[in-house]
């Protein structure tokens, strides 16, 4: 029986618990959508926007909790409102976009922290779980909501892939060819907000940026085309979030930091050892030269 393989036991044994199965499902889904959507953020140099949206979801979450709505929906609405406000400040005043982001996201974040701290005095809600993730605490409802979001995000990216590729590579050229770039940009913002919301319980809002950017950045050092970056990045993202889940289970680490440490390590490996861009093994390096000569001889 394959279950008897001894070294697999530490990995398989925890999965007999229903809560671990839920965590695994959510970890895989979040690892994939963060990498796919994050690839767009990386190539458009919008990393800071990902950070802004993720910090901005907190007040929406708190208000939804107070009013008894689905907290995912509240968080999503707050994320979208923050991007609209950033765009509004940026276009209606001489303030630059990064400054507008800094102003809006810290204000939203402060409001969120204040609201949740006030609420958690009387309720079973833990601020730390939203800030740093709590992958072992996902409920069956969380799994359902994450699955809906993941399906929506992946379907949208698949259906709009060629348009989003053109837009993110050459926005002016795309606009000049008649594509509705305003709508494509808005769609991308919605995808980012949805992804952040789905990742809240896994990595937490402070560290979600890492799971958005690092898998794509790792893959970018390994493969040359955007869809390949997304595919390889998804593998990296899933590996990181599942590893983070086990670290959280065995060592009782907060899941967000555990995942981020794994994905950062994977990035460092690619940074040092990528065949095309690696600092130690890329073209023009001595190690790379020996390895390539050796491979050619095989």
């Amino acid at each position, binding site marked *: 029986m394959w279950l008897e393989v001894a070294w697999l036991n530490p990995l398989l044994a925890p999965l007999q618990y229903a809560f671990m199965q839920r965590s695994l499902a959510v970890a895989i889904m979040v690892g994939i959508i963060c990498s796919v959507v994050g690839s767009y953020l990386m190539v458009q140099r919008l990393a800071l926007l990902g950070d802004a949206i993720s910090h901005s979801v907190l007040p929406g979450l708190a208000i939804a909790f107070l009013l008894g709505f689905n907290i995912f929906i509240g968080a999503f609405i707050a994320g979208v409102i923050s991007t609209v406000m950033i765009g509004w400040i940026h276009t209606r005043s001489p303030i630059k976009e990064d400054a507008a982001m800094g102003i809006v996201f810290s204000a939203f974040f402060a409001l969120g922290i204040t609201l949740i701290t006030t609420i958690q005095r009387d309720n079973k809600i833990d601020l730390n779980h939203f800030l740093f993730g709590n992958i072992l605490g996902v409920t069956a409802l969380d799994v359902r909501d994450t699955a809906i979001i993941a399906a929506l995000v992946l379907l949208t990216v698949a259906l709009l892939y*060629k*348009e989003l590729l053109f837009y993110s590579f050459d926005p002016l050229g795309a606009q*000049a*060819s008649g594509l509705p770039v305003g709508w494509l940009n808005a769609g991308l913002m919605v995808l980012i907000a949805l992804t952040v919301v789905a990742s809240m319980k896994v990595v937490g809002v402070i560290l979600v940026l890492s799971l958005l950017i690092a898998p794509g950045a790792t893959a970018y050092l390994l493969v*040359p085309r955007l869809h390949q970056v997304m595919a390889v990045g998804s593998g990296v993202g899933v590996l990181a979030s599942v590893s983070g889940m086990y670290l959280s289970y065995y060592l009782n680490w907060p899941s967000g930091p555990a995942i981020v440490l794994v994905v950062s390590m994977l990035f460092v490996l690619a940074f040092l050892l990528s065949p095309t861009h690696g600092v130690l093994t890329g073209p023009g390096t001595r190690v790379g030269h020996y390895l390539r000569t050796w491979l050619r001889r095989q």
Partner: protein
Amino acid sequence: MAPLAKITVDHLSVRYREVQALRNINLTLRPGKLIGIFGPNGAGKSTLIKAMLGLMPVTTGRVTYGPRPLAQQLAQVAYVPQRSQIDWTFPATVWDVVMMGRVNKTGWLHRFSTVSRRLAQDALERVDMLEFRDRPIGALSGGQQQRVFLARALAQEATIFCFDEPFVGVDQKTEAVLFQIFRELAAAGKIVMVVNHDLGESITNFDQLVLLNKELIAAGPREWVLTRDHMTQAYGGHIGFFGHVA
């Protein structure tokens, strides 16, 4: 759209916040000629193209192609931005970039057709870049990158072609290929506009010139536009090269 429709620019003005970028431009651009848009730095050459295509808001004026506004007929337009506008480290291959020229014609939710692939392949062949189709765009020289963008424009099957500073940072071979194809497009009855600032030898390649410095100084046949008087108005007294000036 009749193939030989012309573009009419009527009292076009553009302001960004405090700065008047273009003032009261009136122009007619006809198919069949290679049109060069010239002027000093900051003259509003790129702004003119972007405003014509509706890529930036205009303060006053209208631009029509045939009976309708040009900005509503962008499916007819192939636009190649300045090289500096593009992030050349983007994860895409030559083929990916040329296929972008087929996105709008392909339509939402559809896959690229065999016809589109054929057009992209022919376009790459025409600019002599077919053997590079699987290369990442970041691994090409500046001239090769510009030829890939030209191939993308060709694959669009447009009737109006706009190139913004296509000769910046390109090699001799690319310059020759670009001019050759620009002439072929013009000869095929397309409207071909090229923003340029180089007043050297290559200016003789253009049939028509538009000379700008925030306002229109002159537009028409090259010999007619290139007078000392016009050049002084456009460039002030600071122009060294008058070799082709009548």
